[in-house]
């Protein structure tokens, strides 16, 4: 390799690498510098200008051959368009194309100026369109990018042909020189850029995509198919074209030979006819013909034979006596002349050079002209007319071309050349070479001949004794084939590229988009929305698919609905069973007036594990407890039932509380493979003495109101139950005063979350209770639950809200009825019973005193009138109703007798006892009704 070659290769290598390096630069600027924050258009314009400069470098670094520039220019706009955006590609193409137009002014080739400029501009536009329509703004893989490069270069080279149709041979030479290097370098430049960007874009990305998507598969598959298809058609075209090269050359050569023969024949015919006519003028009549004239003419005109033939067709006189008396009708060749003797027939005839009738070994050319009483016939042999024809033949072949560089050779004898194209140098040895070639080859058949080191297709023919040899360089014939293959293959590449795009877009439209739509809907279904319908109806197949999916989803939906209905009903039953296991009757112990107890559980949606319980252990002790089983659902509720019964059984057995809890723990640990556990707070209250014993097994500390102040009962008695078999528990004791109230709860209360995800918390509970120091158990529970609910409003209730409240010294809401005789003994009895009943109600002494006064006074009044009445009976009925909310006593006295309203008595008689009057004023309400034959007086006291 000389220095120039190395330099050229180096130039090409740099121009090929430059687009990839520019890609790396742009990538770096975009990702690693502040330039990446620019908007879309500034980036596109910057990119376009940069790649436009790369295209210009491609032009200027190109190699000028045959007034055209071999270059790597188109790669830049392709890369810009494919990888950085349509506008960038179009701008780069424009810059590169316009510069190429002007570059012709400083010698970058005028011949391909138009083709090159247009191709570069088209490259940018084409890449931009592909990016948008085919790749959908995704970066194509490098093989596809490479294919794009090939297609653009093919288009470029085809444009060279199309813009130079008037000089196809030159265009062919340019294209032949440029095809491989330009297609190769541009395609490699684009492919390298694609690979560079894929590499920069990250290695990891390929790994997270396990399978390529359909469009990629189609692209790769179609690319391979198209490449194979192209290769095959190219092969077929090559074979077909090659096989036709010889036949086409043969046809060409024989055509040229034919024309030349015709020329020579015509000249020869004209020559002989002229001689014959001259003879006919001399011998104008058969009757007057004389032998001396004949001989003289033969001599003078240098002809071989001269015959005078009479009107019967018999030679009557001849230059050769042997012919005299010969009947022309006897030979095929000679009989042709008989047509001249017919009346009205032609007046002359020239025959081709051919074997004579008398002796077929001898070739002659004859001409006959009519004269009076017959005709004259002139015969000529080769040696005679070659001499006469030489000038004409020479002229006929001197300017005749065969193909571009072929020529004709006319040989008269083995060593005598009489005509060849002007400018062809023929040595004597060449003449012999041609002669020998023609003598070995068949006349009119194609054969190959080497002449001055060049291969020629050759064919010869003989005419008028001359051998005419036509020669055409094999390369001329092959060029024709190559041009045709080149153009065919270029067209094929373009057609295949167009097909590729068309089929791809079609598949994308018909299949891929529909698949994505189906997929999108399926995604929604997978995410749990079974009401989604798939409705892709672009084609029958997708309509069927949509219907099938919808049917499946519907079936699934129904199955799930049926199943969940079954589960729901099971869970509802479980919940009902669980809830029914909790005591729900209030007051639970109507006979016990020394405390009031209330509990409630509002279960979350699911069955949960909270429970409470209370029961009498013996006459004066009541046990109350609250518990929370870890977890939810059926397992938790089953464990809860077990825990509840274990605790109740052990506590009821009379053992000390801590022992009972310890035993229950041991029992619950047995076979607790699921690792469930339960936190428990249990207390035993002696409701005579107010002594409370309690154990806290890992439960939330309860709140105790003592002397109007809420406090936490933080004593811990041990671990939760069900986990540690050997756990020990400790009990604590405390004496409650009347009016003390204790609130047990589970974490559903203090750990309720608001919609803002804030916990309710112990502090909030404490301050809520601080506002309510005088609520009886039911109301307190209701107030707390309402507050927790309003806190958690908008959030799903995640846990059971369970509370148990016990107020010591408060009678549960109660009522009573007793009848006493309507006399003074009855009055004393009534007061005694009243005191006994109300002693549990924490009725303040002064209230009790006023009630006593009102009751006694009304009793006496009713007795007096009752007795006075006709229907006076001996009994008075007393009813009372104790309500906790508002805390009040409603009392009612019913007595028979005449209608009499003791409350109105004052107005009528002015005699109502002053004490009664004062006491009544102290009551909150008082009323009289006449009920049948009875007088009913009711009064109410709140406190």
């Amino acid at each position, binding site marked *: 390799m000389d220095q120039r070659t190395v330099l050229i290769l180096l130039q090409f290598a740099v121009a090929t690498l430059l687009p990839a390096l520019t890609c790396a630069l742009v990538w770096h600027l975009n990702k690693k510098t502040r330039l990446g924050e620019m908007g879309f258009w500034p980036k596109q314009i910057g990119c376009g200008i940069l790649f436009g400069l790369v295209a210009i470098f491609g032009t200027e670094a190109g190699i000028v051959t045959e007034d055209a520039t071999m270059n790597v220019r188109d790669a830049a706009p392709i890369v810009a368009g494919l990888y950085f955006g349509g506008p960038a590609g179009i701008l780069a193409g424009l810059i590169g194309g316009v510069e190429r137009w002007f570059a012709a002014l400083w010698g970058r080739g005028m011949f391909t100026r138009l083709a090159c400029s247009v191709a570069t501009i088209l490259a940018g536009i084409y890449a931009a369109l592909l990016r948008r329509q085919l790749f959908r703004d995704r970066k194509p893989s490098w093989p596809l990018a490479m294919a794009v490069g090939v297609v653009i270069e093919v288009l470029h080279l085809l444009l060279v042909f199309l813009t130079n149709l008037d000089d196809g041979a030159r265009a062919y030479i340019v294209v032949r020189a440029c095809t491989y290097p330009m297609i190769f370098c541009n395609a490699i430049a684009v492919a390298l850029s694609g690979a560079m960007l894929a590499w920069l874009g990250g290695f990891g990305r390929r790994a997270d995509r396990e399978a390529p998507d359909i469009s990629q598969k189609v692209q790769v598959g179609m690319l391979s198919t198209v490449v194979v298809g192209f290769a095959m058609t190219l092969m077929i075209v090559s074979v077909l074209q090659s096989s036709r090269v010889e036949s086409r050359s043969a046809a060409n050569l024989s055509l040229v030979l034919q024309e030349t023969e015709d020329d020579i024949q015509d000249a020869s015919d004209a020559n002989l006819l002229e001689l014959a006519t001259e003879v006919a003028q001399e011998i104008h009549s058969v009757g007057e013909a004389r032998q001396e004239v004949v001989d003289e003419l033969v001599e003078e005109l240098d002809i071989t034979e001269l015959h005078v033939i009479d009107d019967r067709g018999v030679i009557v006189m001849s230059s050769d006596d042997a012919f005299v008396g010969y009947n022309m009708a006897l030979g095929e060749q000679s009989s042709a002349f008989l047509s001249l003797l017919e009346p009205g027939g032609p007046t002359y005839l020239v025959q081709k050079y051919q074997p004579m009738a008398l002796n077929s070994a001898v070739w002659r050319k004859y001409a006959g002209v009519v004269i009076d009483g017959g005709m004259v016939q002139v015969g000529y042999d080769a040696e005679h007319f070659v001499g006469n024809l030489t000038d004409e033949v020479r002229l006929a072949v001197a300017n005749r071309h065969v193909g571009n560089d072929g020529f004709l050779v006319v040989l008269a004898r083995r060593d005598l050349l009489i005509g060849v194209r002007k400018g062809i140098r023929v040595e004597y040895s060449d003449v012999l070479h041609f002669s020998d070639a023609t003598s070995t080859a068949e006349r009119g058949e194609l054969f190959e001949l080497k002449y001055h080191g060049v291969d020629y297709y050759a064919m010869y023919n003989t005419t008028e004794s001359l051998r005419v040899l036509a020669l055409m360089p094999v390369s001329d014939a092959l060029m024709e084939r190559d041009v045709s293959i080149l153009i065919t293959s270029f067209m094929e590449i373009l057609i295949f590229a167009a097909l590729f795009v068309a089929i791809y877009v079609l598949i994308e439209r018909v299949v891929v988009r529909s698949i994505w739509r189906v997929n999108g809907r399926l995604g929604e279904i997978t995410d749990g929305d079974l009401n989604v319908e798939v409705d892709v109806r672009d084609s029958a197949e997708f309509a069927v698919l949509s219907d099938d999916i919808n049917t499946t989803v519907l079936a699934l939906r129904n199955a799930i609905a049926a199943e969940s209905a079954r589960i729901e009903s099971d869970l509802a039953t479980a919940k009902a069973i669980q809830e029914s296991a909790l005591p729900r009757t209030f007051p639970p112990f109507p006979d016990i007036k020394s405390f009031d107890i209330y509990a409630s559980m509002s279960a979350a949606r699911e069955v949960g594990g909270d429970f409470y319980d209370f029961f009498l252990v013996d006459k004066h002790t009541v046990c109350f407890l609250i518990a929370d089983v870890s977890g*939810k659902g059926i397992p938790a509720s089953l464990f809860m039932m077990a825990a509840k019964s274990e605790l109740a059984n052990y506590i009821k057995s009379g053992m000390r509380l801590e022992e009972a809890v310890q035993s229950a723990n041991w029992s619950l640990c047995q076979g607790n493979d699921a*690792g469930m*556990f339960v936190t428990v707070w249990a207390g035993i209250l002696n409701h005579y003495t107010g002594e409370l014993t309690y154990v806290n097994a890992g*439960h939330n500390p309860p709140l105790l109101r003592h002397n109007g102040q809420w406090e936490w009962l933080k004593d811990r008695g041990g*671990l939760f139950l069900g986990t540690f078999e050997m756990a020990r528990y400790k009990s604590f004791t405390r004496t409650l005063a009347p009016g003390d109230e204790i609130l047990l709860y589970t974490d559903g209360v203090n750990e309720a979350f608001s919609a803002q995800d804030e916990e309710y918390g112990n502090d909030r509970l404490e301050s809520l209770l601080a506002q309510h120091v005088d609520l009886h158990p039911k109301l307190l529970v209701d107030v707390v639950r309402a507050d927790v609910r309003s806190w958690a409003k908008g959030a799903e209730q995640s846990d059971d809200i369970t509370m148990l409240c016990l107020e010591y010294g408060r009678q549960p809401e109660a009522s009573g009825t007793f009848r006493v005789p309507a006399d003074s003994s009855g009055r004393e009895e009534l007061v005694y019973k009243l005191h006994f009943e109300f002693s549990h109600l924490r009725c303040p002494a002064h209230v009790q005193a006023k009630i006593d006064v009102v009751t006694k006074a009304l009793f006496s009044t009713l007795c007096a009138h009752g007795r006075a009445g006709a229907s006076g009976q001996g009994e008075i009925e007393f009813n009372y109703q104790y309500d906790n909310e508002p805390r009040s006593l409603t009392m009612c006295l019913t007595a028979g007798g005449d209608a009499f309203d003791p409350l109105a008595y004052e107005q009528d008689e002015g005699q109502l006892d002053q004490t009664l009057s004062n006491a009544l004023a102290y009551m909150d309400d008082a009323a009289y009704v006449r009920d049948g034959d009875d007088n009913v007086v009711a009064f109410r006291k709140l406190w």
Partner: protein
Amino acid sequence: MQIKVNADGSKATIFVEGKLTVQTAPDLSSALEGIGQEVDDLTIDLAEVEYIASAGLRVLVTADKMMAGRGGSLRLAGPTDEVVDVLEMTGLLDVFEIVR
């Protein structure tokens, strides 16, 4: 809630972040089941746990029993005050080995 497991031979640490509720406790459960039989020195990092419900405690107890069952040990690392309160209330503070 987020759970990350670092296992190295017989040592393993489970990092828990968020709320250990009845809904999220099963995730910690499966993380526990996921650690290998060879692990006998388990740390559950509770530094990022802002709330623990009884279901979460149950998983911790299960983990403790699992470790005890194979002669290993369980540590609770860096529990927040909220978690410590719950552990204290339930009496578990004395049961677990706690590393502050």
